[in-house]
């Protein structure tokens, strides 16, 4: 046996082992559970029942509708905010940005509690407008995650391109739609991924607002509560597969993952 030589590469070993044990292995286990039945035999029934069960398909559609609506509302609210903060030469732009990001660090259950109290005061019974209240609550929760990536992208926008477009005869509207908007696509993509997925899966917000859990995430929760690991795993796997497909399109890990979570130190 040769003598042990320290090399910098070896520092990675603990984390690599950790990733294998607690990231890769759990995924392998849910794949196994998703395709087996109670006695450990291979089966496709969990997969089939997902697509044939009216309840799960209905939930899937409903959560997609919710997620699309929440993402669209967040984008429409956040884009002008990010644009003004980044482009209108505010003296204290970064400080005001902080104001819009700060709620991110208050525990979301407490913020939703606050919103719920206010909405109850305005509307009375919240379950009378379930869809509207879901959209309001999720928008309230996810807005900072949409503003931050948009701001980052818009801040880096090259002013000279906008001037060039204007010099070449584009009106303000044309400049916006043909230059600014396409150039801010990376921020839009980041923001959309930061909002869409939680909107599909964060059933806690719904449950807190009007005691209903009718989105994708809640299916996992309900199977968890009745100890049905196999169907729960199948749903998790389907969600994970969807996420993988999306993240292939949105590119690889980079700084933006970090910035979007508010790593502002």
């Amino acid at each position: 046996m040769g003598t042990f030589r320290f090399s910098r590469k070896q520092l990675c070993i603990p984390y690599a082992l950790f990733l294998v044990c607690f990231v890769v292995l759990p995924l392998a286990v849910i794949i196994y559970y998703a395709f087996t039945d109670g006695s450990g035999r291979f089966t496709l029934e969990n997969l089939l029942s997902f697509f044939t069960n009216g309840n799960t398909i209905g939930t899937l559609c409903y959560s997609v509708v919710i997620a699309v609506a929440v993402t669209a509302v967040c984008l429409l609210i956040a884009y002008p905010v990010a644009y003004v903060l980044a482009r209108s030469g505010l003296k204290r732009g970064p400080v005001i940005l902080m104001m819009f990001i700060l709620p991110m660090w208050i525990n979301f259950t407490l913020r939703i509690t606050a919103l719920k109290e206010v909405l109850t005061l305005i509307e009375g019974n919240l379950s009378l407008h379930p869809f509207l209240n879901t959209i309001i609550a999720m928008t309230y929760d996810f807005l900072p995650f949409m503003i931050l990536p948009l701001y980052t992208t818009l801040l880096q926008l090259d002013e000279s391109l906008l001037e060039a477009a204007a010099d070449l005869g584009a009106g303000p509207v044309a400049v916006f739609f043909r230059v600014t908007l396409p150039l801010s696509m990376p921020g839009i993509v980041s923001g959309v991924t930061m909002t869409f997925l939680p909107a599909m899966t964060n059933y806690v917000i719904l449950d807190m607002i009007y005691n209903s859990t009718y989105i994708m995430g809640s299916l996992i929760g309900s199977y968890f509560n009745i100890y049905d690991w196999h169907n729960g795993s199948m749903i998790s796997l389907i969600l994970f597969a969807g996420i993988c497909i999306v993240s292939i399109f949105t590119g690889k890990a980079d700084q933006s993952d970090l910035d979007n979570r508010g790593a502002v130190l």
Partner: protein
Amino acid sequence: MMKKVLSYSWLVLVALFMYIPVLILAFYSFTDSTTIGAVRGFSLHNYVTLFTMEELRNMIGGTLLLAVGAAAIAAVLGTLGAIGAFYSRPVPRTLVETANRVPVVNADVVTAFSICILLIVVLGIEKNTFIPLVIGHVVLCTPFVYLAVMPKLKQMDNGLYEAALDLGATPFQALRKIVLPQIIPGVISGFMLSITLSLDDYFVSTYTKPATFDTISTYVYNATRGAQTEIKTALWALSTVIFLVVIIAVVLMNLAASKQPKTQEVSGHDGRERE
């Protein structure tokens, strides 16, 4: 002029939307009313309850301890991982990078469920040992430490490490005295982010925690489903306290950042190059 007024009023409107609920709750936390809208007298009893009721104190203390503990483990693990991966060949590095990305992009509920299945259902680890809970939170946090440290490694001047070795430092000494000081801002940033992620987590906690233990998120969630009003209004006080702590932290961070030479902007986009 008109444009300016319009755009600033939009900012104000959105800010109001984001802050009014929290501020209203803060206002009512200083009264003895049990519902929003019914003003009664000024009272600090919510704060007294918050800081004296054992159940609440344990819950808050436990949440903070878990957050700091998980963040500390994540900071060490993620930093070592990033250094190791940075000096590894492309293939192992890409593998680590890919696995590291999984918890970042994955839905929290899926991460939580898969960890719960492995640790509790398959391996049969008791939830009461807190092992699944801590592992779950470390899984949640470490990828972000890794992502925070990696750009600092890329910016580092590699010649310094080689120079230290030439001058007789052992590789370990060189790492501790040369590499670590250069990446420490990334480590701290990752550590702080980890604390906020752990504090905000609901899903991993609820799937892996012991039945008798609650984090702020799981506690508040359960409290909204028919808790005593005493606890409900004490949570208004908790919300207000957290709001104030966050504001103070942000102000302090801004002050610290503005004192530093212009290398780090307030928003933290300190020219870290993108790949």
